[in-house]
């Protein structure tokens, strides 16, 4: 099985690599559509501004290759932080940008959503809602490391798997099709993060 981490030249790619290696995986970095197409399982990490991440993804057709691999061929995808936000329709960050639009919803400043401050930085507990998820045991009431000023909102209720409270309910986990997406950073969340990564690696949706 090839576990591929999409590399768009920004941020903590090595943290994601380290975390998967710590659970015995041998992740590879991919930065071309061809390399992406040969992945059995994908991780879309993301730090920084969503618009910049989108620009990198759209360069050379990585976004289309990702859609083919995940939506058409059903390869499992883990989106992390901005790697979750870009899946929404609209990003309201430094103006309005079109997201990948895999799910309806938009990314907003958390202060507009009722959070006292931005960024929401630190460990927060995640609570699962009514939606059934194969990751319930790894998610519900566990603490993960968050670090973000924007959050996804307005997504359909049947894909919103878990939330975290910071002045208001913030979307913490989305799940749909073969996609698991987390606003928090499992790769920086010690044991609870490791267990979630293990569950993702074992997941056959």
């Amino acid at each position, binding site marked *: 099985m090839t576990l591929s981490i999409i590399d768009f030249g920004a941020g903590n790619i090595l943290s994601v690599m380290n975390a998967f290696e710590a659970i015995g995986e041998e992740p590879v970095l991919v930065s071309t559509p061809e390399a992406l197409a040969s992945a059995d399982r994908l991780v879309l990490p993301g730090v920084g501004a969503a618009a910049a991440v989108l620009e990198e993804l759209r360069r050379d057709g990585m976004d289309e290759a990702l859609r083919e691999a995940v939506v058409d061929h059903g390869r499992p995808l883990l989106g992390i932080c901005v790697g979750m936000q870009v899946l929404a329709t609209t990003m309201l960050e430094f103006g309005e940008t079109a997201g990948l639009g895999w799910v309806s919803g938009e990314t907003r400043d958390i202060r507009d959503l009722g959070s006292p401050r931005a960024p929401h930085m630190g460990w927060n507990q995640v609570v699962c809602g009514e939606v059934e998820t194969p990751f319930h045991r790894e998610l519900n009431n566990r603490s993960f490391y968050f670090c973000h000023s924007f959050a996804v909102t307005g997504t359909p209720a049947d894909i919103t798997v878990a939330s975290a409270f910071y002045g208001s309910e913030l979307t913490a986990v989305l799940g749909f099709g073969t996609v698991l997406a987390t606003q928090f950073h499992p790769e920086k969340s*010690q044991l609870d993060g490791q267990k979630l990564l293990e569950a993702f690696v074992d997941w056959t949706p």
Partner: protein
Amino acid sequence: MLQNRIIPSLLLRGRRLVKGTGFAAHRDAGNPPTTLRAYAAQKADEAILLDIDATSQNRGPDLETVRLAARECSMPLTIGGGISSEEIAKDCLDNGADKICLNSSALDSPDLISACAHRFGSQAVVVAIDVVDEAGVVSLYDHRAGQVLPGHTWLDWLAEVGDRGAGEIRLMNVNREGGRQGYNTNLLDAARTRCDLPIILEGGAGTLDHLSEAMERGCDALALGTMLVFSDNNIIQVKRFLKNAGHPIRL
């Protein structure tokens, strides 16, 4: 709810950890990867690793140490020391740092804050502000010169750092470092009038009660060095004490 953070702050010198008092008198404090592995197992919420010789030797942090440390650090890792350019910052991030910490280089060229925030995102940019508090008169401190910086108002600098896109502040009370007389929470109260970012308070932790008092006064992120390094305290005990005292703490 969001939990308060307990953050070990580690000083690096010649690939070994050291700890001192008032930015001097450093003693050996162990091996970086081994120590970080232990702190991760004890559920430290983050870690800060500062190469204290980097600035004076006109270089960035020791990347080999960063790389080895990052492999053991299953929580966010902030790296600082001599980060005087975007390229050095990128080297740190590429070697496993999650955030970089700017200090004197930000004072020299405030544009570095904006440049790093733009390129790596604000969440990756911590700015350290060192101050001394002499009977309530708080001044910015320059660790290179070993003295206060005349002509700078620390609160103005704090506000500017925020405006330039820093994602987090590490506020160090230099004359309490290693002194174990408790945190100076007056600094946090003053800082909160000018800055809405997360603020990590550092300098002076000596007893468990000091940590609890600081949290009662509103600190939600505390860095500690001496108290972990040269005492019987470990992070598990520290966090359990704070949790029992009623603070939001992840165990």
